[in-house]
C-alpha cells in the first residue's frame, strides 16, 4: 500500500481508477446497514485521533460462518443420532472453536487507536486519500485488519505488530468542490477464520480541499501591461530558460534531472532554469460570468493553464486576493482558496 503523493493530484488517471470500484459498503447486507444507521445516531464527536470503543464494535456471521454452522449442525445431528460420542466430541470442539473465534474476532478490534491526517487536495471525481495510522494500544498483534469503506480496499491484509503501528490510506471519492471530511472510518476484521466479521465505525476528523472542477477550456486571462524587470533574475529557480547544470540536491524535482547525463554515468545532475520573462496575469472572478461554480471552474482551468505555461499569476476572488506567484505551491494555494470559497453557504 503506497501513499499517493501530491503529484497524483492532477493526473486524471487517478480519478478514472476511483470510479471503477463501487464502494464496498453499498453491497453489504441489510442488517449491517441497519446496524450502521442505528449506530451512527449519536456517538462521540469526531476527533483527529480516536480509539475503538467496545460499545461500538458490532459482529455478524459471514456467509462462510453460516455455511460452517450448517456443516456443524449436520455433524451434530448425525453424531447425536448415531450416538457416537467421539463424533459428538469433535463436533463440539468445532462448535466451541467457532464460538471462541467469534470472541477473538470481536476483541481483534478492541484497543486500537486510529489517527487520521488531512489528505492532499483533489479535484472532484478523484479519490482523496487520507493517511491513517492504526496503533495497537493493547500489546497484541492484529492480523487481517481491513479498512473497508475505501474505493479500492487493499488486497493483502497487513499485520499490525503488538504495540506497533500501521500506515494505511483511506480513500474517499470527492464529489464536489469544498472541504471533504473523512467522516467515520469502517474498520473491520474477519480474523481468525473468516466465520465472523466484526466492524466498528470510528468517527475521525480530517479533511481535504476539493478544488473546483476545471472547465474544459477557458479564455486566456489578459496579460498585465506593466512588466517589472528584476535586474538579477531569479538565479536558476525558475523554469523557463536553461541556465546551466549543477549537482543534484535533495528536494530537486525529478523533472529537472538531466537523465541523459545520468545515462552517461556522470552522476545525478540537475538542469538549472532561470528567467523572469514570464508574463504576469490576473485570474479574476470579475472576468468570468455564470454561476459561482462555473466561474470557479473556468478560473481553475485558467490557473492550471497558467501554471502549465509557466506564467506568473495572481488570483482575485471576492474578498480574497492572492499575489502574483509561480510554481506548484502557488498553484495549489490558489486552487485551495477557490476550494474554500463560500463553502459554508
Amino acid at each position, binding site marked *: 500500500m503506497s501513499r499517493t503523493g501530491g503529484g497524483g493530484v492532477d493526473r486524471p488517471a487517478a480519478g478514472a481508477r476511483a470510479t471503477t470500484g463501487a464502494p464496498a459498503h453499498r453491497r453489504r447486507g441489510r442488517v449491517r446497514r441497519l446496524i450502521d444507521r442505528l449506530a451512527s445516531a449519536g456517538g462521540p464527536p469526531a476527533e483527529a485521533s480516536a480509539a475503538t470503543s467496545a460499545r461500538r464494535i458490532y459482529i455478524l456471521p459471514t456467509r462462510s460462518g453460516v455455511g460452517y454452522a450448517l456443516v456443524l449442525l449436520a455433524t451434530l445431528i448425525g453424531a447425536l443420532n448415531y450416538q457416537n460420542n467421539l463424533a459428538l466430541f*469433535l463436533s463440539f470442539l*468445532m462448535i466451541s472453536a467457532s464460538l471462541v473465534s467469534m470472541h477473538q474476532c470481536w476483541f481483534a478490534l478492541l484497543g486500537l487507536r486510529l489517527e487520521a491526517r488531512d489528505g492532499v487536495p483533489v479535484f472532484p471525481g478523484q479519490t482523496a486519500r487520507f493517511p491513517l495510522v492504526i496503533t495497537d494500544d493493547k500489546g497484541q498483534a492484529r492480523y487481517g485488519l481491513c479498512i473497508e469503506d475505501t474505493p479500492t480496499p487493499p488486497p493483502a491484509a497487513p499485520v499490525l505488530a503488538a504495540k506497533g503501528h500501521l500506515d494505511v490510506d483511506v480513500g474517499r471519492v470527492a464529489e464536489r468542490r469544498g472541504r471533504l471530511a473523512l467522516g467515520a472510518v469502517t474498520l473491520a476484521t474477519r480474523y481468525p477464520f473468516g466465520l465472523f466479521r466484526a466492524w466498528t465505525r470510528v468517527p475521525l476528523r480530517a479533511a481535504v480541499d476539493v478544488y473546483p472542477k476545471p472547465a474544459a477550456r477557458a479564455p486566456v486571462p489578459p496579460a498585465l501591461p506593466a512588466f517589472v524587470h528584476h535586474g538579477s533574475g531569479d538565479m536558476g529557480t525558475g523554469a523557463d530558460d536553461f541556465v546551466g547544470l549543477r549537482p543534484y540536491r535533495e528536494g530537486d524535482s525529478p523533472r529537472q534531472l538531466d537523465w541523459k547525463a545520468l545515462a552517461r554515468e556522470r552522476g545525478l545532475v540537475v538542469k538549472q532554469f532561470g528567467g523572469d520573462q514570464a508574463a504576469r496575469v490576473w485570474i479574476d472572478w470579475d472576468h468570468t460570468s455564470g454561476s459561482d461554480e462555473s466561474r470557479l471552474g473556468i478560473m481553475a482551468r485558467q490557473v492550471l493553464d497558467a501554471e502549465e505555461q509557466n506564467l506568473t499569476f495572481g488570483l482575485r476572488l471576492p474578498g480574497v486576493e492572492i499575489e502574483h506567484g509561480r510554481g506548484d505551491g502557488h498553484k495549489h494555494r490558489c486552487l485551495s482558496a477557490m476550494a474554500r470559497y463560500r463553502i459554508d453557504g
Partner: protein
Amino acid sequence: MDRRPREMSERFQLLGVTILYGLGLAPLISALHGQVGLFIAGLFCLHLAAIRWPRLRPGTFVLALLTIAGGANVLDSYHSVVGQSPGTALLVTMLALKLLEARAPRDLRVLLLLFGFLLVVQFLFNESALLAAYLTALLVVDLALLLDMTIGAGRRTLRERVSVAATLAGRTVLMAAPLALLLFFFFPRLDAPLWDLGLESEQAVSGLKNWLEPGSIEELVVSGEDALRVRFDREPGIPTEAMYWRGPVLWHTDGKRWLPASRYAFPDAAPQIEPTGPDLGYLVAMEPTDQHWLIALDLPTDYPDDAVLTPDFQVLSQKPVDDFRVYRMTSAPSYRTTGLSLDEETAALALPDNVTPRMRELVGRWTVDDPPAQEVVERALRHFNREPFRYTLLPPKLGENMADSFLFETRSGFCEHYASTFALLMRIAGVPSRIVLGYLGGEYNPLSRDYVVRQSDAHAWTEVWIQERGWVRIDPTAAVAAERVDADSRLSSFGASRPVRFRVGADSGLGRALRGLRMGIDALEAGWKNWVIEFSDRKQQRMLDYLGLAHLRQYGLILLLAIGGSVVMLSWNLFLARPARTADPVQRAYELFSRRLSALGLGRRAAEGPLDYSNRIVAQRPDLAPHVEAIVRLYLRLRYAGEQDGGEQIRLQRLVDQFRPRRR
C-alpha cells in the same frame, strides 16, 4: 471464476488443503469398500498430478462424468446409497471430486469448511483414542489453513505464515477445549436415534460360541481381546480364581459337539435360587457378541429389565448384544438351587451313542458300592488328579471318539476336554450334568478398580445335580495336579494364552514392569471406553445424581451447560480483554503508584505529567508529601534522565511497594 494474479500465490494454500485432505482420507480408505477406496485414491492422484501439470485438470464435462461415475461406483459397491457405509462412501467421493474441482480461493475455503464432515464420519468406523488425537490434530491444521486464508499472505514469508497460523489455530482449539468438554458431558443425549440409518456391524465378532466342540475355546484362548470389564459395588470377597462368569449352558451332545437347549425346552422347569450368602451388585461393560446372553457372575439373581432369566440361569437380553453394552447385575456367589423337572433330568442324563465299554467300566468302578452322587463326583475328580492328566493348550490330536481317546490315550487337554468328558462320565454314572460356558477369573486393575475379563479367560465347566444342594458347579480342570500344567504355557504368561487356572505370578522385575505397563494401558483404555465411547444419557443422569440435581432431569443438564458455558466464555473474554502488561519495570511501578492513589480518589488525570500530579497530591494531602515526592523524583530520574541503574529501579519498586496511603 475470476483469476487474479494473486491467486497464483495461493499455491501454498492449494497444496495445504490437498495434503490435509490426503491425511483426512487416508484412514477412511481402508474402511470403505475396496472399489470406492480405489476410485477416491484415483481422484486424489489425478488432483496431485493436476497441481503439477495444470493441463491435466479435468474440465466441466469430465468432472460431470466423474461425478456420475463416482455415484455409480458407490451404488455398485454397496447396492445402496443410504446407510452408514454407503452414505460415507458417497460423501467422501463427492468431497474428493470437490477437491479435484477446486480452483479459486473460494473453493478452497468451502473445502476447508466441509472438512468437518470428513473428520466426523471417521468415528463411525473406528473409535480409538489414537484416531481421535490424529483427527484433532487435523482439525487444527484445517483451522490454521482457514486462518491463513482469512488474514491473507501479506508480505510474510512462508515460514512466518505457517508459524503464525499454526500458533493461532492451536491456541483457539485449546481455548475451545473446556467448552467442548462441557458440552460433551452436559449436552443432553438422545436416548433413541431420530432415524435409523441402518447401523450395521459388519465386523466378525470374536467371543464365546453357544456350542462346544474341540477347538472352539482354543481360538479364544489365544485372543487377548477384552470380553468384559466389571466394577463391583463393594469388595467382592471372592478370589478371582473363583469368579465364574456364566454364559451359555449346554445340554445336548452327540458325542462330539455340545449344544444348548432351546429356550422353551423345559416348560415345567421352576428352578429356585436360594442365596446362602450376601448378594453382590456390579456393573458389567460387555463387548459386542451378536448373541443374546449377558454374562453374569454365577448365579445371577437380579438383571436388567430388558432381559430374562432362563431355567438354566442364563440371562438373555431381548436384542442381540451388537454394540458395546453396559448393564447392572446382582449375583449370589454362594447359593443352592431347587427344582429339577423331569424333562430337565432326562436331558441332563441323555447319552450319545458313542459311549465305549471302557468308559462304562471306568464309571462302574466309582459306582460299584452305590455311593451318593457327591461321592461319585469326588471319585471322578480324584481320578483326574491322580492319573497323569496334563493341562496343555496344545493338546495332541484326538481320535474319532474324543472323550474316549482323551480319557484313555492322550490324557492331555484343557478345559473344553475336561468339562465335556467329565459331564459325560457323570451322565454314565447317573448324575444329571450339563456344561456351562463362560469366563473364569479376571485381572484386577488397581488403577481403574475394574476387573478385566479377557477372551483368553474363556472357560468351560460343569454343573451336576446333587439332591439337597441342587445344581453344583464342578470344575474338573481344577482337579489337574499343578505340577502337570504344561510348561509351554508358562512361557507366555504375559500374553493372552496363559492358562487361567494356573496363572504364574510375575516373578521377574521385567515381568512386573510389563505387567504394570499393561495395567496402565488397561486403565486408560477402560477410562476411554467408560468416559468417552460409552458415555450416555444414563451416565449423565448418574452425574446429575452425584451433583444432587437428579430431580431436574434434562433441565439440570441444560442448567449446568448454561452456567458452565457462561463461566468459560466469560473467563475467555476476561483473558482476551486483559490489559497489556507494561514491559518497563519503572513504568509499571509508576502505574502501581497512581493506582494506589486513585483508590483514594487521587487518580492521575489523562495527560497529567508526573510533576503536576505530584504537586496536586501534595496540595491535597500534605501528609503524603515525603513519600510522593521521593517516588516521583526517583521516577523522573529513572525515566527521563537516562538513569540505567538497576539498584535504583529496585529502590523505586520497593518505595512504591511500601507506599500504602490511607484515607483520612
